[in-house]
């Protein structure tokens, strides 16, 4: 594997009984790169990320930071610097905003000072979270919950942040804000693997894209080489 690849995936396959959701995909993410997996609903994007996070059974080889993590238990993955910000956010509704962030730092729980610093960083990035730190997370608006989910995923300082449809259900203005934040996060050194149905906004921040259809990549390449109109008509069913 190329040493400048933080993540390398070979022949990834995910099956739900007879349904083959991901069919032998190959892809990689470079150091500090932003890469997107695009595709219509049901293409197999979330299954791909869940497999990387170890949450669902899969076949194939996943190498992260030169370590084979294909069989690693899910709860051990964040300790390695790979974090998934899940689809539909998955915040803990009955815990406070700050407790949600603290739990994001579970993998570095021994380092209290680092946790404090990281909480400050998250509040600097998302001021609205700082203003609501004692509030129960379940009472936040959709946009704030997405900020919380991203902030929580950053708490253990991942080398690679995976995000599953962060734009889902948000107003265009909030989507712009969230994606600006992703740019900032990437600039500070975190690589990003993004899954999106909203191809336009995802392509704005990605250097490369993979377009998924029925569990396979139909096209892949540098963002600037892909014609957005063809992409939309042929693969995203918009």
């Amino acid at each position, binding site marked *: 594997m190329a040493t400048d690849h933080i993540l390398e995936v070979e022949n990834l396959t995910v099956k739900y009984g007879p349904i083959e959701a991901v069919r032998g995909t190959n892809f990689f993410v470079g150091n500090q790169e932003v890469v997107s997996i695009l595709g219509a609903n049901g293409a197999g994007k979330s299954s791909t990320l869940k497999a990387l996070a170890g949450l669902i059974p899969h076949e194939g080889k996943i190498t992260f930071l030169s370590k084979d993590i294909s069989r690693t238990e899910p*709860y051990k*993955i*964040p300790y390695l610097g790979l974090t*998934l910000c899940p689809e539909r956010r998955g915040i803990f509704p009955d*815990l406070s905003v700050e407790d949600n962030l603290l739990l994001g730092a*579970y993998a570095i729980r021994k380092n209290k000072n680092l946790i404090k610093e990281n909480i400050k960083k998250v509040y600097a990035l998302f001021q609205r979270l700082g203003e609501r730190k004692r509030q129960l997370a379940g009472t936040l608006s959709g946009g704030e919950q997405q900020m919380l989910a991203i902030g929580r995923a950053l708490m*253990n300082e991942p080398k690679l942040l995976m995000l599953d449809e962060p734009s889902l259900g948000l107003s265009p203005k909030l989507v712009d804000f969230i994606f600006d934040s992703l740019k900032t996060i990437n600039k500070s050194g975190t690589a990003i693997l993004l899954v999106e149905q909203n191809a336009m906004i995802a392509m704005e921040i990605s250097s490369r894209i993979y377009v998924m259809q029925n569990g396979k990549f139909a096209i892949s390449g540098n963002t600037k080489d892909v014609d957005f109109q063809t992409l939309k008509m042929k693969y995203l069913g918009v």
Partner: protein
Amino acid sequence: MVFQQIIAGIITGSLYAIVALGLVIAYKVTGVMNFAYGYMGMISAYIFFTCFSMMGMNYILSFFIAVTFGSFVGYAVERGLLRPVRNISPASMVIITLGLLLVLEGTALQIWGNNYQQIPNLLNGLPFILRFGGGIIVIPQQNILILGVVTAVIIALILYLNLTFQGKAMRAVAQNEEIAKLMGINSSLMMSISWIISGSIGALAAILVAPQTFVYPDMMLSLQIMGFTAAVLGGFESIPGSIIGGISIGIIENLVGTYISTNLKTTFSLAIIVAILIVKPEGLLGSTKARRV
């Protein structure tokens, strides 16, 4: 007279409350209603009886051995009986606890027989007597002990769940196991810990109530039923709800027993609780949202 009954109700109710708490913490984290709960505690009461009365160990040491044994039983039941079927057939976990109830009852009968064994109160001094206005209230020292131990357990549990990192991680598993794993939380370990806590609370309740009920295989039947009722009344997933539920039932039961009929006190109390649940089906402090945990 009324005050005397209310105080007595609080004491009984505090036992219902910790049984409810023990049931609820295991339920919240692992999603299993444990129908063998009281009987797991009963085994620990026998362990206490064996250490203290048969082998002549001192009270405190016997107590610690029995509670530790209870925590081990909690661990073993979750790890050995429930976890293997957790992903195959979650519904059968409840059936397993029902089967376990029968096995534990039979085991106790085999080992210790069905005699009523006596264990003494730890505190046997003169009761406390409070005088005020025209009335007096008599509180046996053992009851002060029960109230003190129960209060300490409740406070410790609330502090653990709300202030420690591990306690918060346990609540995270209760709310969403998959997401908790994404945070790096070993959810299997948290499930074990929740049953260890639950098991030791069950043992504690059994040892505290044993001087009144005597030790025999079905000694925990009534406490288990009332603990379940307290948990249901509290919404089955709320810790404050379990406490309020337990104390309320204790008080209702004592008042009914005194002013209406001793024979009818359980029936009457359950009827009152059913009435409350008809008006407020989610329980006193339960949420209406359907959630596993």
